[in-house]
C-alpha cells in the first residue's frame, strides 16, 4: 500500500502545531519579536542547541542516549580556541573531527561491549569535563587573533555563517540517515534491535556512526560558539543536554527508538528557539526559559505516550474499522 501524503506528513502535525502556537503566543506578548530579526534569532538557535539536538536525535533513533554531549561541546570549544592558528575553518574543522573521532570510539565500545549507553556516557561525561579543564588549564581562554572570527559575526539577511553551517549539517545528516544503507541501519537497530540483528544488520557500525554524529555535531556546535564569542570556558555547556534532548523530543523524535527525521528535529529546535529568543527579547531570565522548556518537554512526552496508547487500540480495532495500524510504521525499512 502506498502511503498517502497525509500519512507521510502525520509525524509533523503535532510539532508544527506546537511551533505555530508558541510563535503566536511569544510574538503577541513580545512586541520586539517580529519580522526578519525574529527569524534571524530563531535560526541562530540552530547553531548551538540545534546541532546538539541533531546529533542526540541520531543516538535516540538508534535506541540509545548520549549524556556526554555537553562535555563534548566544551572540549571542542577549548580545542577550537587552542587551534586558532589554523584559521577559522581549520580550527572548527579540527575540533569537530576530534569530537567525531572520540564519539566513534565511544560508540564502538558501547556497541562491542553491549553496555547500556546511559551508564557508559555518564563516565565519559565526567572524563571529558576533566580533559576540558586540563586543556584550558582550569580557566577561560581567549582567542588572540580576533579578526579571524569576523566572518561569523556577519549577517546575510536572515542567516549568519553559523546558522548556515548548521542548516547544511541538518541537510547532510538528513540525507545520510534517509538515503544511505549505513543511515538506515541506525533506524533498524533502534526500531527493533533483535529483529535487525536476526536479519543480519550489524550493531557496532551503526552504533559507532550514531555516537560519532552526536559527538561531532555537539563539537561543531561548541567550536562555532567558541569562535563566535572569541573564548571558551571549561565549565560551559552543562545545560546543553537538557535543551538538546528537549528539542529532539519536542520535534517528535520517538523515545521508543527507530522513528523520526531531521525535519522533526528542526521543528523542535525552532520551538525552543522561539521560546528562548522571544523570552530573551522580553528580558526574561534564563531560568524562565528552562522552566518553559521543562513544561513543554513533559507535555510532549505525555502526548507521545498517550498517542502510543491510542495507536495500540488502533491495532486492536484495525480489523473492525479497516484502518491500517500505524504501530509499526517507520521502523527500519
Amino acid at each position, binding site marked *: 500500500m502506498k502511503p498517502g501524503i497525509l500519512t507521510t506528513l502525520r509525524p509533523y502535525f503535532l510539532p508544527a502545531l506546537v511551533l505555530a502556537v508558541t510563535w503566536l503566543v511569544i510574538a503577541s506578548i513580545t512586541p520586539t519579536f517580529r519580522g526578519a530579526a525574529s527569524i534571524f534569532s530563531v535560526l541562530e538557535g540552530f547553531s548551538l542547541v540545534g546541532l546538539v539536538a541533531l546529533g542526540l536525535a541520531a543516538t535516540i533513533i538508534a535506541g540509545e542516549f548520549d549524556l556526554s554531549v555537553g562535555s563534548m561541546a566544551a572540549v571542542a570549544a577549548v580545542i577550537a580556541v587552542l587551534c586558532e592558528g589554523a584559521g577559522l575553518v581549520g580550527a572548527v574543522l579540527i575540533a569537530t573531527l576530534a569530537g567525531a573521532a572520540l564519539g566513534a570510539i565511544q560508540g564502538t565500545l558501547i556497541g562491542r561491549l553491549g553496555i547500556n549507553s546511559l551508564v557508559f556516557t555518564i563516565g565519559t561525561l565526567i*572524563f571529558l569535563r576533566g580533559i576540558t*579543564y586540563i586543556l584550558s588549564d582550569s580557566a577561560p581562554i581567549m582567542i588572540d587573533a580576533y579578526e579571524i572570527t569576523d566572518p561569523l559575526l556577519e549577517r546575510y539577511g536572515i542567516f549568519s555563517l553559523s546558522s548556515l553551517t548548521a542548516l547544511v549539517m541538518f541537510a547532510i545528516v538528513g540525507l545520510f540517515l534517509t538515503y544511505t544503507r549505513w543511515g538506515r541501519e541506525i533506524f533498524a537497530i533502534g526500531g527493533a534491535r533483535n529483529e535487525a540483528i536476526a536479519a543480519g544488520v550489524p550493531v557496532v557500525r551503526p552504533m559507532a556512526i550514531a555516537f560519532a554524529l552526536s559527538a561531532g555535531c555537539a563539537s561543531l556546535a561548541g567550536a562555532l560558539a567558541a569562535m563566535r564569542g572569541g573564548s571558551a570556558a571549561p565549565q560551559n555547556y552543562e545545560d546543553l543536554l537538557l535543551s538538546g534532548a528537549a528539542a529532539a523530543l519536542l520535534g517528535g523524535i520517538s523515545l521508543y527508538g*527507530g522513528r523520526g527525521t531531521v525535519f522533526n528535529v528542526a521543528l523542535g529546535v525552532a520551538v525552543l528557539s522561539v521560546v528562548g529568543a522571544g523570552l530573551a527579547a522580553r528580558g526574561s*531570565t534564563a*531560568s*524562565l526559559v528552562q522552566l518553559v522548556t*521543562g513544561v513543554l518537554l513533559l507535555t510532549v512526552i505525555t502526548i507521545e505516550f498517550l498517542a502510543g496508547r491510542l495507536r495500540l487500540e488502533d491495532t486492536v480495532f484495525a480489523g473492525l474499522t479497516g484502518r491500517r495500524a500505524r504501530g509499526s510504521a517507520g521502523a527500519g525499512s
Partner: protein
Amino acid sequence: MSEPSGSVTAGMSPTLQQADKPNRPDWLPMALVIGLTVVAIVIAVAVTPKFLTVDNIRAILRNAAIVGIVAVSMTPITLSGNFVSLGISQSAMAAMVSFVALVGTGMPQVFAIVLVIAGLVAVGVLQGAVVAAGLNPVITTLAAGAIIFGVVSEVSGGGIVRAGDAPLSWGGSTVAGIPIEVLVFLIVTIAVTLLMSRTVTGRETTLVGANRPTAEVSGISFTRVTIVAFAIFSVGLAIAGILNGAAFGQATAKSFPDLTIDSIAALLVGGTAIAGGQGSPLRSAGGAILIAVISNMMVLNDFSTGGRLAVQGGVVVIVVVVLDLMRRGAFRR
C-alpha cells in the same frame, strides 16, 4: 515499540530490556568495590603518609556523605527498573533553598524540616506517578528538574537566600567526633538497606526490577513500588538539602551543581545494575566512599581539577564496564 505495552525502558538500549539479570551470587560486584577501595587506600597510604589520620578520614567521609545519602536513597528507583533521576541537583537545591528560607522566616526548625520533607515527597511522588503510568523516567526527571530549577530561581529571584540569625550551628557540629552528615549518612544507609532487604515492599522492588512481567503476574503492583521508591528518594534528597542548608546557613538556585552526576556515578560504581533487579543501597554507599577516597588521594597529591575529573571519569568508565562484563560473563557460564 518492540514492547507495545508502553515499556518504561523505551528509548534505552534493547539490551537492557533483555533478561540479563540472573540470580547469581551477589558478592562479586561488592567484592570488586571493596577490593578497589582497599587498593586505593593502600596506594594512598604509600604515597601520602598523612592519608590515614583521623582528620583525613573524617574529611573523606564528610565528602562522601551528601553524595552517599542521595545515591543510597536513589537505589530503590534503580532497583525497581526505573533507571536513575536526572533531576537530582535541582530537587536537593529546592530542599536546601526552601529549608533556609523557612528557617529565615523564624519558623521552628523542626517544622521546617518536616515541611521540606513533605514538600519534596509530594513532588517526588508526583514524578513517581507519572513514571509509573509509563513515561520514560530519565526524561521525566530531566524535565521535572528543569521545571523545579525554573520555579525556585523565579521565586528566589536568583539571589542568595539566607537563614538570618536562626541557630543553624548544628549543621557543622559533630557527635562523639563524627560529623553530623556522616552520622546521617550511616543512618540513611542502614534504614534504606533494611527497608530493601527486610520489608515486603523492599523485596517486591527488587523483584519488579529483575523481572517485571513475572512480578506483575504474581500480583505485585509496579505503580505502588515505583511511587514508594520515588518517595524514599525524595526523603533522601530533602535530607541532603537540609544538611547543607544547616551547614551553610544560606543557599542559591545554583547550589549542588554536580550532585546529579556524582550520585549516579556513586550508584553505578557501587555495582547496582542500571536495568534494575540487582544491587543494594549498601553498595551505593560503598561507591560513594570509593570515589571520595580516590578524590581525596588526588587532592592530597595536588592534582588539578581537570586531572581529578579525568581520573574520576576514567574510574567510573572502567568500573562500570568491568561490572557489566562480570554480570554477563557469569550469566553465560
